[in-house]
């Protein structure tokens, strides 16, 4: 099942491209011209995205480099532990929605220190794979189309992240213990 999925995920992009271009040829679409036209839009979009991303990444970098994020982790850790989240995993739980790169480095560290097949290693793997960087996704998607009022999106995203962390602990305990 996993091998099949890996093969599919390698094949799917080239095959999709082939399919699109074949249909374009059959329907006599000027494929190259249209591609370039759409590509220009992509370039414009990434340029307009830069201020949104830069602002968000700088704010996160300030928070992290000042030590405030670590202090926040220490502050919240006791609460997370009370809910049943192991102390070693707490930093990952807090970092995951904020910074993708930071979360990934914490995950690798946990896997390295405790071993990939330990409870903590499996838990970190599951949490890393089943949640996403909420701040980044909201910044990119809303930023790219110029939405300034995000509504409930951030609130729901963070609640979902929290649920994801708890659910991961329960599932990994249940599946592997």
């Amino acid at each position, binding site marked *: 099942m996993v091998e099949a999925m890996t093969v599919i995920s390698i094949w799917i992009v080239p095959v999709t491209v082939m399919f699109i271009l074949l249909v374009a040829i059959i329907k006599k679409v000027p494929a190259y011209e249209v591609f370039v036209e759409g590509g220009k839009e992509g370039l414009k979009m990434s340029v307009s995205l830069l201020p949104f991303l830069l602002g968000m990444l700088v704010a996160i970098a300030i928070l992290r*480099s000042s030590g405030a994020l670590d202090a926040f982790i220490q502050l919240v850790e006791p609460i997370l532990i009370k809910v049943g989240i192991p102390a070693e995993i707490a930093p990952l739980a807090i970092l995951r929605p904020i910074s993708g790169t930071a979360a990934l480095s914490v995950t690798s560290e946990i896997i390295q220190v405790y071993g990939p097949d330990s409870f903590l290693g499996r838990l970190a793997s599951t949490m890393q794979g089943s949640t996403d960087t909420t701040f980044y996704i909201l910044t990119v998607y809303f930023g790219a189309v110029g939405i300034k009022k995000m509504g409930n999106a951030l609130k729901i995203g963070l609640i979902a992240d929290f649920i994801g962390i708890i659910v991961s602990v329960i599932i990994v305990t249940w599946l592997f213990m």
Partner: protein
Amino acid sequence: MINVIWALMAVIGIVYAMFNGTMEEVNQALFDGSNEAVTLVISLSSVLIFWLGMMRVAERAGILEAFAKLARPIVSRLFPEIPSGHPAMGYILANFSANLFGLGNAATPMGIKAMEEMKKISQSDKASNSMITFLVINTSSITLIPTTVIAIRLQYGSQAPTEIVASTILATTITTVAAIFIDRLLRRSRSH
């Protein structure tokens, strides 16, 4: 809300640095963070240019329309505001499938196109209900095969690098369902 959160993140960090003696690191972080954003946008732009180009070809060849029709049974329930057969449906389905196969790269441009189409429907600079539902599903991450994690596990000598696939799928499914549920709950309480 995001305006306050963003400003507070920076202000709290700088004030904390005053007492913590980490002002030098913060000074450095201002430039590092900016650099990181530029690097990120450059790598993102290659993906955006390629996929938005491809998507435009697919659109002109009528593939997207067919995809939107295919998506109707699934997407119309989740996004009742989107008229049936609207291009937004095709892009939403494309984004979900790319996410499922772990093609984070290709998923982003399709997701942005979906957002653009949803903005055309709502014609407002406020996030619409369907946009929020769409992003909530995205942030709760619907990857089937977490390739990055498997690679890390392999690197540190795991006996079974892929054994976390089942737990990941289970966790992500429950989270996504919960997120959709909370979204609906908040939406209902808002409209009353």
